[in-house]
């Protein structure tokens, strides 16, 4: 597994797309901060030149962060998967391939998330009007978001490894992370015992997290972790199992 990880890391380091994506994400964060700062300087009554508003753009963009996760995962699960047949021929197990690609892409994604988070706090606290607790609110909301976003990353990885088309993956993500709450609420409303299930849907939780953040009432909530862990474990178990038996053609 170590050799496979090293070889995939070699591949990632030589992949321009990944570095470009990372730079674009960081530049967009900086640009957003700059626009808010500039607008605040131009108009004293401009209400959005605050760190809270700046942070809320991230807390309210769960699906966008998951799309970025998709791009990071794609770095090793896109066209590169055509080389898997050679690795399998040379004795690399399917399990090694599945987990190694996940570990590497996830590591890079988490690294860029950490850098992005630090950049946001740095810019938000230094360029924009900041409230006393804004960083604490932002970090709490981010910690709540974390398991949901990571579960999205795992779903993307599983679907890519099982060779689902990119359009299907986007539709699945939209369904789970945007429409799942409303759908569960409508479908399960008449069923006693299940009619509260929508509260655990990723889309409901992401919305709640944003509202709590905007109301300055955000705090750590285990519901996010329950949902995130359930989705992650199920998707990874099913994905690894199916990939281990999959023909590579």
């Amino acid at each position, binding site marked *: 597994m170590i*050799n*496979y990880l*090293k*070889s995939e890391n*070699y*591949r990632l380091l*030589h992949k321009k797309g990944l570095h470009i994506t990372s730079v674009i994400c960081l530049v967009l964060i900086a640009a957003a901060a700059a626009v808010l700062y500039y607008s605040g300087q131009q108009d004293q009554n401009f209400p959005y030149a605050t760190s809270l508003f700046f942070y809320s753009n991230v807390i309210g963009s769960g699906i966008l962060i998951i799309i970025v996760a998709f791009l990071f995962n794609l770095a090793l699960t896109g066209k*590169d998967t*055509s*080389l898997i*047949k*050679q*690795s*399998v*021929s*040379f*004795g*690399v*197990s399917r399990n090694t391939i599945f987990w190694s690609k996940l570990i590497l892409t996830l590591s890079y994604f988490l690294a860029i998330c950490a850098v992005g988070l630090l950049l946001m706090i740095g810019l938000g606290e230094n360029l924009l009007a900041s409230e006393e607790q804004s960083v604490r609110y932002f970090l709490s909301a981010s910690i709540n978001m974390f398991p949901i976003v990571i579960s999205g990353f795992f779903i993307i990885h599983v679907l890519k490894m099982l060779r689902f088309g990119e359009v299907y993956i986007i539709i699945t993500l939209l369904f789970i992370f945007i429409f799942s709450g409303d759908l569960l609420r409508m479908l399960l409303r008449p069923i006693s015992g299940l009619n509260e299930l929508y509260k655990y849907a990723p889309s409901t939780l992401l919305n709640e997290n944003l509202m709590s953040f905007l109301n300055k009432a955000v705090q750590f909530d285990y519901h996010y972790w329950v949902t995130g862990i359930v989705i992650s474990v199920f998707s990874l178990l099913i994905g690894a199992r199916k990939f281990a*038996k999959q*023909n*590579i*053609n």
Partner: protein
Amino acid sequence: MDTIIQTYQLKKTFKEEDIIKPLDFSLRKGEICALIGKNGAGKSTFFKMLAGQLMPTGGDIHLFGKSGKEMIHSKKRMGFMIETPEFFPDFTATQNLEYFRIQRGVIEKKRIYEVLQIVGLANQKKKRFKDYSMGMKQRLGIALCLLGSPDCLVLDEPINGLDAEGIIEIRNLLLRLNQEKQITILVSSHILTELQLLATRFVFIKNGVIVDDLSKENLNDKSKKQVQLKVDDAAKASRLLEQAYADIQYKVLPNHIITIQNHVEKGGEINRLLVDNGVLVMEFRMEALNLEEYFLGLVEGNEK
């Protein structure tokens, strides 16, 4: 360990269609075995199962005497090139081989340059893979197979896309690897004349079943002679032949040509039979079969 590859009742089914019917096959150390069959005969499916790319529906595979999970270690002693080799298009030959060198745990970096030298790509090592010709891609595929200093090569269409010079080079390379480094080779190709020059054993596969398995000597014996006739009425000649010789094996080719595979020693008698019954024999030839013709006789044609 004299047997490198052994399959027991190996089977593959796709959508209820048997692509490979229970198949027993063994490849012994030192052989260059040619697997011959039409498109769809099951050659690539068989190779892919050996490589682990396809899961067998039934049966068992042993590589260097190991099966199941232990087979992963045996694969380190093998080099597979199944269909078109895949590489990173934006990487150079050196970068692509470096990726696989790390992956395969080949310690010495200079091995990359050695294998590039062997396949004649040393001068092209800085060119990106996407700019390679088909022949160069095939050579890089072979270089990849050789990277881990294998004891056995499994090559599916290794000379596909090569020019005449390239074909001769790869043939000589494979012969050299077999003779000097005792590398066992299992190979398939649609260019049967090349296989005839290369292989020491010929396995014919049709509809997922091995229909013949011959050493080079056996093939030479079996394909020694056939009678070829050009007549004015092939249908009438066929009837006469069937009436005169109940076990006759022949096939009718285009342009009223009939080839007869047995009763070859009765060539004169056959000629008289046809002429006496009003069939005009315009050409009469006794000839040896090459691999291509033997193959066609075995799996194609209007055989009786």
